[in-house]
């Protein structure tokens, strides 16, 4: 567990937004599980850090929370993407794509000038 890198704040927000886009309304635990699974268990989310991040996204108006019942009939707060959240996801995903592309070119072997 210790050798798996922690998810840092900036990317966590992006992952949360993407998760909600893919799966629709979901509770905090579900989001945490999903992020861990998608990363192929390579990333470890300290589940606690998720809640302040969710609150931040909610304050910014990218997601909205609503109380509902979970699949096994437990009370849970379900988060869903707002329209602003969708736009933000698009924007961030594009930026992230550019960044990785640049880094990839930079690090590609045999292209030293």
């Amino acid at each position, binding site marked *: 567990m210790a050798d798996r890198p922690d998810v840092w704040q900036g990317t966590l927000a992006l992952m949360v937004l993407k998760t909600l886009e893919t799966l629709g309304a979901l509770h905090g635990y579900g989001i945490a599980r999903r992020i861990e699974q998608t990363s192929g268990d390579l990333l470890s989310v300290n589940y606690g850090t998720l809640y302040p991040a969710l609150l931040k996204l909610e*304050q*910014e108006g990218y997601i909205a929370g609503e109380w509902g019942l*979970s699949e096994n009939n437990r009370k849970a707060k379900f988060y869903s993407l707002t329209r602003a959240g969708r736009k933000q996801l698009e924007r961030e995903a594009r930026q992230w794509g550019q960044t990785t592309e640049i880094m990839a070119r930079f690090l590609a072997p045999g292209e030293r000038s």
Partner: protein
Amino acid sequence: MRRARAWWMRVVGMFRRREGDLTAEIESHLELHIADNLKAGMSPEQARRAALMKLGGVEQVKEAYRDRRGIPWMDHLIQDLKYGARQLRRNPGFTVVAVLSLALGIGANTAIFTLMDQVLLRLLPVKDPQALTRITWEGQHAGVASMGAGTLPYPYYREVRDRAEAFDGVLGQSPVELSLAYGAHTEHLQGELVTGNYFEVLGVGAAVGRTFRAGDGEQAGGHPQAVLDYDYWMERFGADRGVVGKTILVNNVPLTVIGVSAKGFVGMDVARGAKIRIPISMAKEVMGSLAQVWNLENRRASWVEVFGRLKPEVTTQRAQASLTPLLRALIETDAPGTSFFGGSPQQQEYARQKFRETYFEVSPAARGYSRMRTRYETPLRVLMGLVVLVLLMAALNVANLLLARGAARSREIAVRLALGADRWRLMRQSLAESALLTLLGGAAGVALAVWADRVLVALIPAGDDHLQLNTAPDLRVLAFTLAVCALTGLLFGLLPAWSAARLDIFTTVREHGRSGAGNPRLRRVLVAAQVFLSTLLFLAAGSFVRSLENLKTLDTGFRTEHVETFSIGADLNGYRNERAVQYYRQLLERLRAVPGVSKAAIASMRVVDGDWWGEPMRIEGYAAAPGENMTQAFNIVSPDYFAVMGEPLIEGRDFQAADAASGHGVAIVNETFAKKYFGGRSAVGHMVMPYETGVMRKVEIVGVVKDSRYENLRDTPPSQVFLDFDQHPDPAGHFVAVKTDTGAMPSSMAGSLREAVRSIDPNVPVFAMRTMEEQVDRSIATERLVAWLAAGFGIVAAVLAAVGLYGLMAFNVARRTTEIGVRMALGARRGAVTWLVQVDILRNQ
């Protein structure tokens, strides 16, 4: 946008804490996780443990969540303030003393600052005040009758207005006293004659109707109009818009009210408070009694106060330089043809030379101009200095109290530190408490200041009216107070905060707060500083009180008992020349007939009221040196005036009824005059030639009267000349004095005296009714005010110092209770213990 929204949500989050929601969300998270773990085959206990570990601790998550929900530092601040408020509520005695100390200190500062701001600091509420300058005519211009220092003759003003290129506009004004009749009521008030461009140059509009336009001041006698001051319109006309277009009688001249000037505008002289403005072209009509002076074409009378608006980028120096050729041309026109008063050809040449050396000066006037400013500047600065000392005392006092309290709480603080409290946070708590104290003190201080200013303004005499100052605190004053509060709070708050933060946990806990805590040396220094400051304040107060006593016991030269005085303005109501002579004769007869009056007299000018009337004179038998100032303090008085005022004649005789008809001009001079110009010889029988406002007359000295104070009580009497009121062809009596029978109280005569004046003409206003004792009292009112205030501040300072000293000693004794108990158990006598404490007190001084 998003960020702003997030911040707003956080601000909201500080007040809408949904703790229940947070707990529920985390619980549901754990339940979901446990359920999954159970499905994966863990035992219930294992499942719960794993879930908790994965979450990272319930309380930690909640704390991180809370930090995100609100704004942490503001949350803390609110907590600190709440904590501070609780502390203050728990120690009402401490709080009351501290708040009162601060209220006195801050209140005194706010009160004096309010006055200082208005008299000395504030910019005029006009368009771009920084560009305004005053243009004065400086130097000796003999042969020109001057109605005020630095004024210009109207033709000179016109030249500057039309030709000076450094200015965007040049306005002129002249203060006048007026008698205004509207409806059934006549009143005496301050007004201003202003040039037609006055409002345009200042950029001041009208609240109602319109103001004057540039052309309005041009044609002599052509603009019988008036603009009312806003406050006066509110007060006298009840803000009635219908007054525009109505006719008022000003000095018996009908004028049409064309408008009301903008709210907040009080003119260039903030203290004069002119209530009505009249086109300067109406000067002669309205001010007729000195027709020679109020003449727009007269180059030999200077009476216009001139202000100019500098063009952008032009400095006062450049403007002044640009005026020089202008004045040169004026002087070259006027110098040769003018009969310079001064006797011998050498003297005339000297005066002409001086006239050629006169110059225009341009000085900044963004704050307007006021004679009162020069008069009150020093007292106000001195008072400001004193109140700063008082505030310093108050701050030291509260610092001391806080230190004592901090010492008493040192164990609590040590325990909190031991439990891991953040020192910085402790300091902030202490500061928050100080901030609360200052705010409370500041609020009480502002209330105190409003009240104090009202009293102060009422106590300062200024002419016949009280100072036209606004005592309500405005934003500027409140900003000042807030700044003072912040500074004070830091001053007295930092010390205790710092000493709380430096507390040594181990010693404090071990010694049960018996010693060390509260830093007694620091507190001793504070108390010593207080004692020093209060001594300083007392010394200052003492010197003011002493100079006041000196003025009070001074020989004024007149006897003030049983003399009632009042002012009238019959000349303003159209009594001129023969009618005036008749009027005053009748007036004195009626006054003498009032029961209880033994003598009545009239003079042109009230004495010891800040007025000065100088007239240059030639004295036969005295050869004046070239350039010698032959201006004599002047007054025109009726027979019996000296008897009423109790000024004995030391030689010759008083004016007599027979003089009036004799055609032979007579004068009386004072002792100083006689000594100065005749040395050991007798002055009686010599001729003097007063050049009274343009007319030269030859009169014979028939008597010498003992010296008495003239303009005020401070200055020694100048050389004086009195002319006979009854001989004047166009007398203007303003100061009436009656001697009452010894049985009658002068102040009880007011009603019957007023009635006597009304019985001749009810439209002549009577004002400034006061006994001569009150008059003398008024003339030292500023000194008295400063002395009383200084004494008051001294007492406040002493009380504060006493409170501080008491606090320190009470604390020291409390700290040594055990020691004293042991001493007494071992046989020390009470006296010895008292001695011990007394020595400690003395050591603190």
